[in-house]
């Protein structure tokens, strides 16, 4: 049985960030990855400036192979059913369009952590002074003995399930799928990530260019039919925006957890097991999870380092330190912050101000209709309470975290 200081589950960006902190402090760290590396990852790949800065500060300049074409994204364009569109540039210039297969692998290598790929996590037992981690490699059972475990294995986290078996039943699940189309004609500016606030299309509808093809993606409550939802979006783009596409050549999809950042219901783990990244519930408002994954991943690594040096419980350190990242992420969903501050990395209020009064009215009406789509989740009271906590307490209550 391999004995290590830390096991990280999942070879993602948050894992790379956590591993970087751990390795720098001299902790023996092993990353377990289910697939063979480099591995494919479903993602828009559009990183926010904050995430980009983190990558550069911690891993250096990005290699070319870690980027898709177009290599950079200028900002986000919002489209509304009233046919008003507003483009917003990211603060600080363009950001990279990551090729997750290679960017993640590159970051993992830069962290200098040891990776055991094709090794899937199969369960854990927290024994107080160590954690026994069960895994499987090519079907063969494997065991690791670690002082701490970090779950960085994405929205459908097996580590989260291992410590909170009921958790997946407590939150609403969405399906997010994207299809790749050869382009006949596409008037959408390829320098921007396009997003539709359209309740008739889906809970989350987007499109952008990648490597000469156009991605059309849609997210919706689990249970609906992907093919139908997607076809609906393609028709809408064709009719309203003149986007002419071939039949798709590839498609992919995965489960997503939108809610936790919105209602401050994060899951950070238990005992010697930490949950981080999107597994913990971090997601930006435009559905970008990479920047918060990097930062929360780093914080989980720091928490282990601090817990060891200060001889304190790791949960205590992690929860104290994660406060800053919770604030950053939940601020983006906070209506008061959106109305009176600039929590996002592009200037929505300025873009709104550039519209005519009539258009502003249409945008507000469309936004409201879009929000109503989420009514069934009954998040209203929780959002309002989180929004009020922020100015009164300077942050979001820790009592709601798991």
């Amino acid at each position, binding site marked *: 049985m391999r004995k290590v200081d830390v096991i990280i589950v999942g070879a993602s960006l948050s894992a790379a960030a956590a591993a970087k902190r751990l390795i720098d402090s001299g902790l023996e760290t092993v990353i377990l990855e289910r697939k063979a590396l480099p591995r494919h990852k479903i993602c828009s790949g559009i990183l926010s400036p904050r995430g980009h800065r983190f990558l550069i500060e911690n891993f250096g300049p990005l290699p070319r192979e870690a980027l898709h074409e177009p290599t950079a994204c200028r900002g986000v364009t919002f489209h509304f059913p009233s046919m008003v569109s507003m483009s917003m540039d990211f603060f600080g210039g363009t950001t990279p369009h990551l090729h997750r297969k290679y960017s993640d692998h590159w970051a993992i290598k830069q962290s200098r952590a040891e990776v055991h790929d094709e090794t899937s996590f199969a369960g854990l037992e927290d024994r107080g002074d160590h954690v026994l981690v069960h895994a499987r490699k090519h079907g063969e059972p494997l065991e690791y003995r670690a002082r701490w475990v970090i779950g960085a294995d994405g929205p459908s986290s097996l580590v989260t399930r291992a410590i909170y078996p009921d958790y997946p039943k407590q939150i609403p699940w969405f399906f997010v799928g994207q299809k790749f189309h050869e382009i006949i004609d596409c008037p959408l500016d390829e320098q921007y990530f396009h997003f539709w606030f359209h309740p008739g299309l889906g809970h989350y509808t987007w499109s952008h260019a990648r490597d000469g093809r156009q991605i059309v993606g849609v997210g919706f409550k689990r249970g609906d039919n992907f093919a139908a939802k997607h076809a609906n979006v393609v028709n809408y783009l064709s009719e309203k925006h003149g986007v002419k596409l071939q039949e798709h050549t590839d498609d992919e999809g995965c489960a997503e957890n939108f809610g936790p950042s919105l209602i401050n219901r994060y899951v950070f783990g238990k005992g010697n097991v930490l949950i981080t990244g999107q597994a913990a519930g971090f997601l930006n408002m435009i559905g970008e999870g990479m920047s918060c994954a990097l930062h929360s991943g780093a914080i989980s690594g720091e928490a282990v380092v601090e817990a*060891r*040096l*200060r*001889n*304190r419980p790791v949960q*205590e350190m992690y929860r*104290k330190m994660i406060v800053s990242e919770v604030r950053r992420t939940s601020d983006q969903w906070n209506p008061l912050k959106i109305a009176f501050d600039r929590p996002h990395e592009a200037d929505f209020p300025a873009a709104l101000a550039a519209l005519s009064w009539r258009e502003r009215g249409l945008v507000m009406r469309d936004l409201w209709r879009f929000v109503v789509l989420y009514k069934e989740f009954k998040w209203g009271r929780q959002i309002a309470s989180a929004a009020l906590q922020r100015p009164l*307490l300077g*942050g979001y209550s820790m009592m709601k975290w798991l």
Partner: protein
Amino acid sequence: MFDIFAKATPAPRDYAACSGCSLCLLVCPVWRKTRDLRYTPHGRAKALQHGVAAADLKDSIDSCTLCGACVPACPENIDLVAMTLDLRRQLPPVRPLAIGTRGVKKIADYSRQSVLLAGAALREHDAARRAAMQLLGCAPVLDDGDDIALALEAGAQISAARQEEFLLPLRTAAQLIVADALLAQQLGRWLPQMQISNLGMALSRRADLRRQLRNDDLYVIEPRAYHADYEARVRYYDDLRHATGCAMNLDLQRIAIPATARSLSQRLGLKTPDDAEQTHWLLQGRKIARIVVEDAGDIAAFRQISTLPVVHLAELPND
């Protein structure tokens, strides 16, 4: 609710609280000798934080002189002497110390008199010991617990029988005057009702002794007792210094510079002491005519490197 957790209970002031500032190096006699971070409280605390076991810090733990200079120097208020002693207790003994009963037949009765626990070093300078007893009006004592003092320093076990044998007669005394600071502190825990004073303080309070101190004297404070009660004593000795004009073994931080730098092995006689560099440093650049020590154990160290007269505080009136 928010943030209450962020400011949760203060962490204990042990090795884990060390922030690595190195302030203890500035006052550490072992650092002066080795210039090696491993042989300092900072080095030990950081090693422990990184999960190094006590057994792998054996030499460092042995090297500490327990002078306690690092305790008032530490901005994190860690009891660094307690940290070293705790580590010593975790290690097998450097030398087996037989702390068994001495089999004293007759239990002494001090009938409310003062008692001087002189310790081995002062016993060696018998004139000084007798002078001290006379000045302080102390009854003679058979068992001064020097073996216990050594055991405390070494982190060795003291049998309950020996402890009781030592304490039983002391309970009949009115006051204990103790030369050894570690023993004095332990007695304070064993006999919480007893009035316990440190020999240096008991003597230096006396007006007849103070009158003998001159402005060309170097007054050498016993560091362990001084640092264990730093806040009170720094004022006390500052006043003494200004009242008498004598120089003292204090550095710019008003922390006492020990005259010797002996590891546990050296104290136990397993290795030869090498105090010269430390004693030289204490005397460097000082224009003095006489050395007055609180701790009789310092006399030999000074005599080895200096021709200046060295006297114990108790001998001052007859000097």
